C-alpha cells in the first residue's frame, strides 16, 4: 500500500506539472492585452507605462521563460500577486478557500446522506411510483443548470416565502458556520445536483449487486432481507460511489463557481469569477492549481477508499 501511495504521489506531481504548463499556455494564448486589462483602457494615453508593466511582470519574455519564472516562484511557495485585488494569491486563497471547502463539504455530506438512502430505496422498489418520482426529479435536477436552480430557489424561498436569505453568509468563517439561514440555499443548490447524480449511481449499483450470487447465498443461509441489503449489498454498492465521489470533486468545485456567483458568496468561485473577467492570471493559475490538486487528491482518495471497501483489491505492480 505504501509503495502504491508513493507511486501515485509521484504520478500526481507529474500530472500537476503538466496541468500547470497546459493552463499557462492556454492563458497566454487568450487574445487581448494583460497590461491593458490591468492598467485600464485609458492607459493607452501613456504607452511607456504599458511597456514598463510588461517588463516588470515578464510579459515581454517568451512564454516558456515566463512559465519557468512562475514555476520557480511556485516551488518557493510564492503563487504570485493579484494585480486587480492587490494581494498575494496565497493570502487570497487562504481567505477564500476555506469558505468554498465549507460550502462544498456541507453540500457533499448532505448529498450523500440523502442520495444513498434514496438510491437504495429506488433499487429495492424499482419500477414503482416512488422510483419513477425520484428518477424524474433526478433527471430534472441533473439537467438543470446550477444558476437556474439557484435563481428559482431564491425567488421561491427568499423573495416570496422569506424563509432563507438571498445570498450566502457575508463575513468571516464563524459567520459562515453559524449563519444557517443564509447558507441553506447555496448548500441546497449544490446538493440538489449532487444528489441527483449520486442517487442514480447508487440505484444502479444496488440493482447490480442485488442480482449477484452472494445475495442469493446470504438469503439461502437465512439472512434477513434488511441485513442482506444494509450489511452486504450496500457495502459493495458504495465502491463505485467512492470512486465517483473522488472524481466529482473538481466538478463540484466548478459548480461552486456558479453557485457562489449567484449567491454572492465570497469563496473560491467568486474569486475565480473576478479573476477571469479581469485577466488576473496569477489568481486564475492559483485557482486552477487548487482544483488540480483537488482532482489528483480526489482520485487518490477514491483508490484508497476502493481498497478499504473491497479487501480483495490489492494495489501491486503488475
Amino acid at each position, binding site marked *: 500500500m505504501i509503495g502504491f501511495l508513493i507511486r501515485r504521489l509521484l504520478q500526481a506531481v507529474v500530472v500537476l506539472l503538466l496541468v500547470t504548463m497546459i493552463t499557462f499556455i492556454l492563458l497566454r494564448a487568450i487574445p487581448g492585452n494583460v497590461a*491593458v*486589462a490591468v492598467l485600464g*483602457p485609458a492607459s*493607452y494615453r*501613456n504607452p511607456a507605462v*504599458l511597456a514598463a508593466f510588461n517588463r516588470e511582470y515578464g510579459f515581454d519574455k517568451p512564454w516558456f521563460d515566463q512559465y519557468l519564472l512562475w514555476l520557480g516562484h511556485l516551488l518557493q511557495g510564492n503563487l504570485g500577486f493579484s494585480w486587480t485585488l492587490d494581494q498575494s494569491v496565497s493570502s487570497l486563497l487562504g481567505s477564500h478557500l476555506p469558505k468554498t471547502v465549507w460550502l462544498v463539504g456541507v453540500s457533499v455530506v448532505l448529498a450523500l446522506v440523502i442520495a444513498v438512502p434514496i438510491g437504495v430505496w429506488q433499487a429495492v422498489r424499482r419500477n414503482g411510483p416512488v422510483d419513477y418520482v425520484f428518477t424524474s426529479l433526478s433527471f430534472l435536477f441533473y439537467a438543470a443548470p446550477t444558476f437556474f436552480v439557484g435563481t428559482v430557489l431564491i425567488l*421561491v424561498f427568499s423573495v416570496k416565502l422569506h424563509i432563507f436569505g438571498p445570498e450566502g453568509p*457575508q463575513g468571516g468563517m464563524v459567520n459562515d458556520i453559524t449563519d444557517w439561514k443564509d447558507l441553506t440555499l447555496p448548500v441546497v443548490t449544490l446538493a440538489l445536483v449532487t444528489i441527483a447524480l449520486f442517487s442514480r449511481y447508487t440505484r444502479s449499483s444496488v440493482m447490480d449487486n442485488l442480482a449477484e450470487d452472494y445475495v442469493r447465498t446470504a438469503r439461502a443461509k437465512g439472512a434477513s432481507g434488511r441485513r442482506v441489503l444494509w450489511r452486504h449489498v450496500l457495502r459493495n454498492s458504495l465502491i463505485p460511489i467512492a470512486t465517483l465521489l473522488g472524481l466529482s470533486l473538481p466538478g463540484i468545485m466548478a459548480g461552486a463557481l456558479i453557485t457562489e456567483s449567484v449567491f454572492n458568496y465570497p469563496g473560491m468561485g467568486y474569486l475565480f469569477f473576478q479573476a477571469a473577467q479581469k485577466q488576473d492570471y496569477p489568481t486564475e493559475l492559483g485557482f486552477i492549481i487548487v482544483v488540480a490538486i483537488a482532482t489528483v487528491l480526489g482520485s487518490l482518495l477514491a483508490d484508497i477508499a476502493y481498497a478499504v471497501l473491497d479487501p480483495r483489491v490489492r494495489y501491486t505492480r503488475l
Partner: protein
Amino acid sequence: MHSQQWRRLLRPSYKMAAACCAVLALALAACSSSGGSTPSATGSSSASSKVVGGTATWALPPNSAPNYIFPFASSTYFSTVNFAEFQYLMYRPLYWFGNGASPTLNSSLSLADPPVYNGKQVTITLKGWKWSNGETVNADDLEFWIHMMQAVAPGDWGDYVPGLFPSNISNVKVTGPLTLTMTMDKAYNPTWFTDNELSQLTPMPMAWDKTAAGASNCTNVVADCAKVYAYLDGQSKSLSTWASSPIWSVVDGPWKLTSFNADGNSTFVPNPSYSGPVKPTLAKFEELPFTTESAEYNVLQAGAAGAGQKIDVGYIPTTDVPAKPANATVGPNPVNGYTLAPLIEWAINYFPINYQSTTGNAPVNKQLYFRQALQYLMNQKAIINGPLRGYGAYTVGPVGTYPATSYLSAQGKLGDPFPYNVAKAKQLLASNGWNVVPNGITTCAKPGTGPGECGAGIAQGHQLVYNLPYATGTNWIEQEMVQLQSNASLVGIKLNLEPKPFNQVTAIGGPNCVVAKTSCDWDFANWGGGWSFVPDYYPTGETLFLSGSGANSGGYTNAENDSLINQTLTSASPSALSNWQNYLATQVPVIWQPNGAYQMVEVSNSLGGVLPQSTTANINPEDWYFTK
C-alpha cells in the same frame, strides 16, 4: 472611457426563469405574484420627517471593489470605484465637480475658492478646512501633491497625459499659508485648466509625508517624493490595515473608514471634524460588493420584500427594466418601495474608425462621405427606444448631450445630425462612384479623386466588406450591432460581426496602433463604453481627437480639427468649443452611438437626499438621511 458594461456578463435571465417556473410545480408560487409593478415615486414623501442616524447600505457595481486607498493612483488603480465611490468619501479633491446632475464646478464642496487666473499665472486660495487630526488643509498640502506628481507622474498617475499637467507648469510657489501660485507655460482657457487640470489635484496631509524610516520632506523637495510615494503605495496595497492605519485615518472628507475587507465590504462613520457645508446625518454608511447584477438584484428584491439584507441604494439590470413610456421621465419600477433613477454619465459613446488600418480599407475610411453614410445607418432612436428601454442619450458629436450643459452648442442641441436614413446613405455612396447593391456587396465603380469618384487609393471593384469586433456582455450593444449590420446590408456594406470579450476589444481598438505599436489590422472596434468626462470634465478633444494623441484610437488626423481643439484650450470664449464640436460632429471621426444608462439605480423610499445623482458618478452619502 468606462468599463462597467462587461460586468453584465453571465446575467441569468429572470424572464427565462419565470417561464420555466410555469413548468415547475416548485416555482409556481414564485410566478403567481411576481414583482408588482408600480409607478415610480419622485422620492421620499415631503410630509415625512428626517431621522438622525441609521445605517445606509449602498451596492457596489458588480464584480468591483475598492483596491486602493491612496488618492494618488497609477493606471492600475485609476477607477470609478476607487475614486468616486471610495476615496472621495474620505479625501476630497481640491475642486469638486457635480452640482446636482450638472458636471460643473461646485464651489461650496471644494476645498478652495475658484482659481484666479492672470495671464500665465493661476492662484489657488484654500478655504482652511480641517484634517481630522486638527491640522489645516493648507497650501503645503497642495504643494505636497504637486511635488509628488512632478516626481512620479508619468508612471504612477493614471490620468497623466504627456505634455499636460504637470509638464505644462513651470513654477509652483506657496505664497501664503492658504495660497499657492502656479505659472503655466502659456495662458490657457481658465475653464479648461480648472476642469481638466486642477480637477486632478488632491491635497495630502503632512502626516503622509513620510517613509518607513520616518518623516520625509516631499512637501518641499521633489527629490524626496519617490520614496514617499513608494511607502504610501505599499501602505495602500496592505488592504487589511486600511481601517486601522494611522495614515489613512487622517481625512478631510465627511467620512472615516472603520472596517474594510478585500471583498469590498466597507463601513464608514462620519468624520466629526469635517468642515464642509453638509455634515453627515447617517450614523453609518456601508458599501456592499456583488458578483453580478443579478446577484445584487436578488438581494434587492428580497430586501424590498422584507427578507435578508436591505439595500438602500442599489440597481436593477437593464434587461429587467420595463420600457419607459414616451415623454415620461422614468417608467414603471418593478421593485416596490423604491424609486427608479437611471444614472446616465457625463459621457459620449462611439466606436472608432481606424484610419491607419492595414486591412486595405483605410482609403475608404478616410472618405467623409463613407463615414457619413455609415453614420446615417446607425439608428440611435431605435436603440434608445428598444434595447435601452428608453434610458439613454443621443451622442451627436464630441460633447455629451446629457445632462444639459452650456457646453453643448446650439447645433448640438438640435439633436442627431445623422438621423437614420438609408436613402441618404445610399445616395452618398452612389454619388461618389460606388455601385450600390442592396443586400449584396457594394463596389467601387469609378476609381479616382475627382468629383463623383470613389477617392484616393480606392481601386475599381473595391468591396465594402468590414469586420466589426464588439464587446459581448452588454445586451443593448449586441442588439445595436445586429441592427447596424442589417441596416448596412441595405446599401451593400457587409459587416462581419465579431463578438469578443471586452478586454479583447479594447486591446484591439483602444490604442492608437501606430503610437502604441500594436496591430493596425482592424477597421472598427466597439467596446461599448465610449468616453466618460471624468476627471476631465470640460469636453475638449485633446486626448481623443487631436492628431497623434495616445487615446485617439483610430489615428484620426485633421489640421482644421487640431487648430480648433487648440483654440478650445486657450480661448475662454464659448464659441471656441461650439466651433470645434460643430465641425467635428459632421466630420464623423468615429461612429457616434447612444450613451446608455450607466446604472439603473434603485433608491429606497425611506432614504432621502440621494437624488438627483451626480453624472460624474460621485456619491455624497453625507446628504442622505432616513425618513419616518
